C-alpha cells in the first residue's frame, strides 16, 4: 500500500463511516484491528487490501481507494470473518455494501474484480430474461464480455456428455414477474441495469 495522508482523507470523507454504517447496518466504528477476520479469510491471499485493512479504511474515510479495490469484489461472501468478529461486525456484508456502492457510483472495477462483475451481470441477465439461471447463456455472455472466449470450453463437452448442460433455457411461466422485479428495483434504487 502506498503512503496516505490520513488527516486529509478524514477531512474529505468524514461522513463515509456513517454512510457505510447506515447502509450496511454494521457497527464499523467498533473495529479495533484485532485481525481475526484476515487470519481466517480464505481469499486474503488474492486481495489488494486485507479485510481488517478494509474496515480501517472505512473508518478513515478512504472511499475512493475502497471503491476501486479488488478486495470488495474478490471477497467470496463466505462470512467466516462475520462469524468470528468479536465486535459483531458482519464484514462480508460491509464488503457487499461497498461493492453495491461502487456499482452505483459507476466506479469500473479492473482486472480480477472486473471478471467478477462481468459474471454477476451475465448471470442476472439470464435470470431477468428467463426467471432462472441459464448456464450456457451465462458462460457465453461471460466469455464474450471478459474476452476469455474459451474459458471452460474444455469442460463443456464432458459436462454435456453427462447430461449436465441443458441446451435450451428453462423459462418460468411468470417470467414477466421477474422482469418486473428488476425494473421496480431499478426504479426505486437503481444499480441493476
Amino acid at each position, binding site marked *: 500500500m502506498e503512503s496516505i495522508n490520513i488527516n486529509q482523507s478524514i477531512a474529505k470523507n468524514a461522513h463515509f463511516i456513517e454512510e457505510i454504517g447506515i447502509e450496511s447496518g454494521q457497527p464499523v466504528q467498533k473495529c479495533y484491528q484485532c485481525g481475526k477476520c484476515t487470519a481466517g479469510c*480464505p481469499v486474503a491471499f488474492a486481495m489488494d487490501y486485507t479485510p481488517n485493512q478494509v474496515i480501517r479504511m472505512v473508518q478513515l474515510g478512504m472511499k475512493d481507494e475502497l471503491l476501486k479495490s479488488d478486495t470488495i469484489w474478490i471477497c467470496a*461472501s463466505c462470512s467466516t470473518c462475520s462469524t468470528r468478529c468479536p465486535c459483531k461486525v458482519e464484514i*462480508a456484508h460491509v464488503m*457487499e455494501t461497498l461493492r453495491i456502492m461502487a456499482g452505483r457510483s459507476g466506479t469500473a472495477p479492473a482486472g480480477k474484480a472486473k471478471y467478477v462483475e462481468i*459474471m*454477476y451481470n451475465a448471470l442476472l441477465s439470464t435470470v431477468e430474461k428467463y426467471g432462472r439461471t441459464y448456464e450456457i447463456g451465462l458462460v457465453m455472455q461471460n466469455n464474450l464480455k471478459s474476452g476469455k472466449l474459451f474459458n471452460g470450453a474444455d469442460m463443456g463437452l464432458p459436462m454435456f456428455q453427462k447430461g449436465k*448442460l441443458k441446451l435450451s433455457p428453462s423459462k418460468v411461466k411468470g417470467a414477466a*414477474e421477474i422482469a418486473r422485479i428488476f425494473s421496480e428495483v431499478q426504479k426505486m434504487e437503481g444499480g441493476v441495469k
Partner: protein
Amino acid sequence: MRYAYYPGCSYHGTGKEYESSTHAVAKKLGMELVEIPDWSCCGATAAHGKSHLLNVALPARNLAIAEGMGMDVTTGCAACYQQLAHANKRMTENQEIREKVNKVTGKEYKGTLKVKSLVEAIGTIDPELIKSKVIKPLSELKVAAYYGCLLVRPPEITGFDDPENPMFMDNMMKLAGAQALDWAHKTECCGASLGVSNLGIAVKMINRILKAAVESGADCVVVACPFCHLNLDWHQKSVNKQLGTTYELPVFYFTELLGLAMGISPDELGLKTHFTDTQKVLSLVG
C-alpha cells in the same frame, strides 16, 4: 413431514444427482417434497453484489408462493438456502422492508414460514427411523463431511448447526454406518462463486480442502451443495492441471450416500454422472 420444496437452478443440470438422490431418499423416509409452483431463481451468487433490494426480492417471490401452500420451505442447495433464509429473516424482522419488497414482487409475503436446509430437514428426523431404513451400512467407508460456508454461516441466518464444527452431516453419515472423520476444513469456503470469473483463485481454495481431506484419510468428501460439488468434483481436474497435484477423490452428496445405505441403486441416485470416478468407493460399499 411435508415441505414446500425449492429445487434451485442447478436441479436439472450440474446438480442433477442431488435432485434425484434427494427425491429417492425423501421417499424412503416418508418425507413429502412438494415443488413450489413456477419457482424462480433466488439470485445466488450475483444479486448480493448488485443491490440489497434485488437480493431480497428474488427469493421473496418464492417465499410468497410457498406461503400460499401453507408449508415450510426446504432446499438442498446451500446457496439457495442462504438466499431464502436471508430474505425470510429480513422480511419477518422488518415490516418496512417486507412492505417494500412485496411492492417490488407484486406478491404479498406475510412472513409466516420457516426456511430449512435439506441437511436440517433430514437431520432432524428421528435417528431411529433413518437407522431402520439402512439395509446396507457403509461400514468400510471413511468420509470427510464438508459443509462449506453458506450452509452454516452467518449463524444469525442459518443457526441450526455449529458454524465452526457442524455435526449434522457427520451424524447422518454415522447413521448410514460410515466413519465420519474429524478434520480441519469442514467449513472452509471452496471459492465456487469465483469459479467462472477467477478460476486461478478458486483452484487454490479447492486444493486446500482436498489436501486436508486426503490427509485425514478420507475415501471421499461428502457435500450438501451443488456449487461445492461442482467445484470439488468438476474442478478437481483443473486443480491437478494447474497445481500439479494428483487428486482422485470422489465427492458425494450426503443424499447419495444415505441412499446407497438404504439400498437404492447407484443408477437411481445418479452416481454414474460424477466427474471423479466413484467406482472405488462404490466397490467399498458393495
